């Protein structure tokens, strides 16, 4: 292999390793934003997302996504992928797949049956995610052909995860005590330091998530990758700062957990356009994401009354869709603000909606079937005592 090819491969591996670490970030955010009595259960769910995702994507999902296209809709499935020249791509795509599943975990935390969740996670990684992924990233997918741009997966990964999280949270229902007399109550996260560390790790991993999605670094890709790193960083910073200011104005105090969510919202929003927008564009996308995430969390919590302990629906679903649309506005090549007219924006909307519908419908079917068969929710007393002591017969914090 020549040096340039090795450079590309090495960059993909390094980026993939960074994305891998995001699993730890998700785990910490979810653990930190929920109650201590469920912390072990959350660890197990995230850990199984990674394990099942790694195995399932290798065993089947990767070819469903990247196999030869059947009607631009699905890849030709093949068991136990083993192509010696393509292992770096398998790795990079595997850690992406695990991310999509993990997003759901936070939204349904604190009341979902462990066994049920595991089954969902498996279906997510081998069917739901790879199929819509195929539409955009395989090359022959129908959305690719329409000209849809989702560089690193605002929609393909995050929105899919976010909408599935929405469905999951609705089907499972809110935690006991979350809504009383039509009022939304605060259920405090038990360790915001874990939450903050998780966000730092996610931000770190995102450099791999977005930067690695160039799938190359040699030649002309080099400066692209650098720009991606910058746009990613600026959007995250702008969104976190904006979210903080919004909460300061709106609730009177700079809210810690909302600010942390702000950073994540900025990261999700820039994911689609990280390679297509300018630093200034990234900055503005970040500001928008920072505003939207605060009001979206508020709206979903207080108006829709959907209980999402970690804000996954707003961060990944809403901001994933938003970020994808904003590519149509801020893309320096073809964006509305750069004289490209509404064409790209229209294509972006088609992609966002069609993948959104796909994610909602399929995950609803899965959750619904699970609800009617093995059940999705733990018994009331288990929930009150905490999932750890019932599902795992142990507490994670001891003396």
């Amino acid at each position, binding site marked *: 292999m020549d040096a340039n090819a090795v450079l590309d491969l090495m960059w993909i591996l390094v980026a993939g390793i960074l994305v891998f670490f995001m699993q730890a970030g998700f785990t910490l955010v979810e653990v930190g934003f929920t109650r201590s009595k469920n912390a072990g259960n959350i660890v197990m769910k995230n850990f199984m997302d990674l394990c099942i995702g790694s195995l399932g994507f290798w065993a089947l999902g990767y070819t469903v996504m990247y196999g030869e296209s059947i009607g631009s809709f699905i890849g030709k499935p093949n068991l136990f992928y083993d192509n010696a020249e393509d292992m770096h791509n398998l790795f990079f795509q595997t850690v992406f797949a695990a991310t999509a599943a993990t997003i759901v975990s936070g939204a349904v935390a604190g009341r979902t049956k462990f066994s049920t969740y595991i089954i969902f996670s498996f279906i997510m990684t081998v069917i739901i995610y790879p199929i819509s992924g195929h539409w955009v990233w395989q090359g022959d997918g129908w959305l690719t052909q329409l000209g849809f741009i989702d560089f690193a997966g605002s929609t393909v990964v995050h929105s899919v995860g976010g909408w599935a999280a929405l469905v999951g949270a609705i089907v499972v229902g809110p935690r006991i005590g979350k809504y009383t007399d039509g009022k*939304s109550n605060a259920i405090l996260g038990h360790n915001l330091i874990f939450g903050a560390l998780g966000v730092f790790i996610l931000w770190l991993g995102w450099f791999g998530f977005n930067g690695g999605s160039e799938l190359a670094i040699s030649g002309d890709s080099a400066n692209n990758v650098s720009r991606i790193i910058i746009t990613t960083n600026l959007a995250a910073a702008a969104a976190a700062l904006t979210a903080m200011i919004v909460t300061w104005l709106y609730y009177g105090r700079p809210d810690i*957990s*909302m600010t942390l969510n702000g950073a994540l919202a900025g990261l999700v929003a820039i994911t689609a356009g990280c390679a297509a927008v300018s630093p200034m564009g990234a900055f503005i996308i970040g500001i928008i994401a920072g505003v939207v995430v605060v009001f979206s*969390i*508020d709206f979903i*919590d*207080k108006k829709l009354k959907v209980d999402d302990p970690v804000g996954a629906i707003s961060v990944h679903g809403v901001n994933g869709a938003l970020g994808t649309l904003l590519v149509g506005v801020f893309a320096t090549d073809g964006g509305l603000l750069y004289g490209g007219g509404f064409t790209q924006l229209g294509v972006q909307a088609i992609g966002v909606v069609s993948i959104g519908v796909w994610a909602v419908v399929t995950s609803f079917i899965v959750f619904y079937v699970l609800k009617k068969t093995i059940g999705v929710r733990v018994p009331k007393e288990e929930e009150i005592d905490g999932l750890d002591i019932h599902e795992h017969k142990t507490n994670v914090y001891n003396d």
Partner: protein
Amino acid sequence: MKKIEAIIRKSKFGEVKEALHQIEVNFFSYWDVTGVGNEKEGHVYRGITYSTSDIQRRFLSIVVSDPFLERTVEAILKTAYTGQVGDGKIFVSDIEEAYRIRTKEKGSDSLK
């Protein structure tokens, strides 16, 4: 012998301890509790503004011989005071017997 249970603001603990020290009450136990009472504390969490009367307090349990009772109560009343709602309470009850484990002493002797 009397048991004095005082529930005070955590932020006042340093002063109260110092005052007890001054009057030579050098033996007691304390721990943190949540107090429910008149005081309300405003909180914001993820956009939900709420006010709670569940507030962190420090609970002191002090067993003293009878002659010490009055001055101990007074010391606490004075130093735990801010004048704001939420300063806390003092409760006095009777102790029938006391032992020092180390020496097996009983009664007031065990409190010296």
